[in-house]
């Protein structure tokens, strides 16, 4: 299969899909070298023990283009993204670092706006950016700004979120509409009218996670469905938890404007990123109470129980609006607009 190898000998944009190719890259290049018990946890953050305390640490890089989009910008995204990874790991976010790779030609006024946005977001969450770095690279593209944020948090005592905890009959809950961010970016890139196009849902999940405190014993795992969307996140959980999931299409909240963009471009909203949503798998008995509490959180009013856990080996099924069933499979490559 030399053709197969040839095709993958350089990094291509699909390696950033958050799906199959990203996983493959991690398996083939990174995990063999960085093999340790923390990485093997495969969580959104690493949980580190220090003198009886559990610290969570996570890092994320933000390379999005366009830099400014409806509902946010790369700066706000860089703060929320890392904070959210800490929060869904059961940690209270404490400190952030921020490293910038600045392209030559970038307008300083744009950089100022982005940094201000980070300031506002971080201050609002009382999570200071305590250290950072800036570098400049020669770039043909003045939009090629890259930001890395790393976050440290304190895992709340008693929390043990892990896919291994998932059991049959547990329920799958999502804290709001899915695919908003991904649809917003696609709409902007493909010249949809800005006034009517969807907005990114970019937002921190700190308040949501605090309101979930009474349910920490019932919640088996939390994730934020970013790159690769809801489907990718759920497939990862199903595989790691060695269970199957059955979802109800009618129960999955998708905003009409997101549906519209997805339909026009021929992409599946379940694979488009959210940047302000949480997915929870919890004990069925607590499902309705969790839902009620979630719905009282600003931004999570359309939280919904979207499915149930069954015995299995990592398959995710969707019961469609018409009552039929289809599989949700891991995507290879980011969703692209199509004409067919």
């Amino acid at each position, binding site marked *: 299969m030399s053709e197969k190898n040839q095709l993958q000998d350089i990094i291509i944009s699909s390696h950033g899909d958050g799906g199959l190719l990203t996983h493959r890259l991690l398996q083939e290049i990174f995990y063999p070298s960085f093999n340790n018990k923390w990485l093997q946890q495969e969580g959104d953050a690493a949980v580190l023990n220090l003198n009886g305390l559990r610290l969570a640490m996570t890092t994320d890089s933000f390379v999005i283009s366009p830099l400014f989009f409806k509902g946010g910008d790369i700066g706000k995204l860089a703060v929320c993204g890392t904070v959210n990874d800490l929060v869904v790991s059961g940690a209270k976010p404490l400190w952030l670092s921020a490293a910038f790779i600045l392209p030559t030609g970038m307008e300083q006024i744009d950089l100022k706006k982005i940094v201000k946005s980070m300031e506002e977001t971080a201050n609002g969450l009382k999570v200071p950016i305590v250290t950072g770095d800036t570098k400049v690279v020669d770039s043909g593209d003045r939009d090629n700004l890259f930001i890395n944020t790393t976050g440290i948090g304190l895992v709340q005592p008693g929390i043990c979120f892990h896919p291994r905890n998932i059991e049959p009959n547990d329920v799958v809950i999502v804290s709001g509409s899915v695919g908003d961010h991904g649809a917003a970016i696609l709409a902007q890139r493909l010249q*949809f*009218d800005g006034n*009517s*196009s*969807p907005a990114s849902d970019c937002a921190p999940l700190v308040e949501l996670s605090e309101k979930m405190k009474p349910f920490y014993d019932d919640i088996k795992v939390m994730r934020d469905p970013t790159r690769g969307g809801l489907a990718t996140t759920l497939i990862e959980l199903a595989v790691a938890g060695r269970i199957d999931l059955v979802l109800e299409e009618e129960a999955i909240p998708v905003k009409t*404007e997101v*549906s*519209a963009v997805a339909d*026009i471009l021929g992409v599946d909203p379940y694979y488009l990123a959210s940047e302000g949503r949480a997915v929870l798998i919890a004990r069925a008995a607590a499902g309705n109470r969790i839902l009620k509490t979630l719905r009282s959180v600003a931004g999570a009013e359309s939280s919904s129980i979207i499915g149930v856990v069954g015995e299995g080996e990592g398959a995710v099924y969707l019961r469609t609006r018409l009552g039929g069933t289809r599989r949700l499979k891991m995507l290879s490559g980011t969703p692209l607009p199509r*004409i067919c």
Partner: protein
Amino acid sequence: MCLGIPMVVSSIEKNYTAIAETMGVKRTISMRLLPEAQPGDHVLVHAGFAMEIIEPAEAGEKIKLLKSMLKEST
């Protein structure tokens, strides 16, 4: 080969273009293949082009027919 979406023509612009809308979302589309379409028309849009007017009367008739056929057979 045929991704096409029903949209409603909001306004006709110059040079054979129009603003069309579905579920509240608007985009500029070309009317080059359907110059006779007017604001308010439902059109089938493929690759940014309006391809044909969707006859609401015809669609409505179909629904009516379907409903009566389904009623008959029960």
